[in-house]
């Protein structure tokens, strides 16, 4: 088993029609079809989903934690990007 480990797959499940697929976890499987079967058995036992996506973990390109500063910090000082500067008329109520 350790010599020939199945590849890892990331599993995305859509809970209800209209909602986005959400990452729920990962599992091992020999190929995409079996990954869907395994995902059905591991992640939808309690009626959680209406649709399953699987993708090889290797095929995901992730941002690197060491680049966190340059990637995300510049946005901190740009408060004007948040729509918090509008006066909302009282008649509109809670938004």
């Amino acid at each position, binding site marked *: *088993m350790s010599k020939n480990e*199945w590849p890892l797959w990331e599993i995305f499940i859509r809970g209800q029609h209209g909602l986005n697929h959400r990452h729920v976890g990962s*599992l*091992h*499987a*020999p*190929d995409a*079809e*079996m990954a869907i*079967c*395994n995902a*059905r*058995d*591991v992640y939808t*036992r309690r009626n959680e989903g209406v649709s399953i996506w699987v993708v090889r973990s290797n095929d995901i390109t992730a941002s690197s934690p060491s680049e966190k500063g340059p990637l995300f910090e510049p946005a901190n000082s740009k408060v004007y990007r948040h729509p918090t500067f509008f006066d909302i008329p009282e008649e509109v109520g809670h938004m």
Partner: protein
Amino acid sequence: MGAAIEAVDRAAYADWLQRVGDNALILGHRVSEWCGHGPALEEDIALSNVALDLIGQCQLWLGLAAEVEGKGRSADDLAFLRDAGAFRNVLLVERPNGDFAQTLMRQFLFDAFHIELLRALGKSTDLRVAEIAAKAEKEVAYHLERSADLVIRLGDGSAESHARMEKALKSLWAYTGEMFLDDATDQALAEAGIAPLPSSLKSAWDETVTAVLAEATLAHPGQSWQHKGGKQGIHSEHLGFLLAEMQFLQRAYPGASW
């Protein structure tokens, strides 16, 4: 549904329901023996799901069997308090798990039969039978998809997995014929329109099995001598050991519940 019951001998009907229920119970128990021992976490969970589906189905079938029998027994009584000679499952489902190949091949050969039986039972003249079959059919369609997928992947896999699947197929093949044998009970149920004749399911089964084995690059064993007897209560020695484990608690502590 009252008419369907009147149209058939009560004892024959109860007997037939036990055949369907016992197939699910015994295979469900066999598969549950893998729980905690699967070759991978994912397989372990998948096998346990299949076992749970089958045991859930057996509850419904044996519940109806007890009702039709009308002797005040429950599904639990039938499952846990009958001896081997009173079980009506086919010999295939009591075959030991062996290795993963043997377990999967047994599952596939049975699933391919099970789905045809349940599809036909969906048209039963007894509504209760049709309703149980409709629920079970969805579960079994998935069992078949999964077991067929794995038979293909392991048959057409490495030299080692191919050899193991080939060996499993050879050792189990002689237990497949019994699923399609008709006897007096089957005739009575078919005449009442409650169930199909087992022999009428053979050609669809052949088609599925031939196609999957070809894709799995496994040699079709063809015609050969076949075991029989399980449906009449004549079982292999393996069933006794299975029941000893499955029934231990109720036998040692009668009426225990939680």
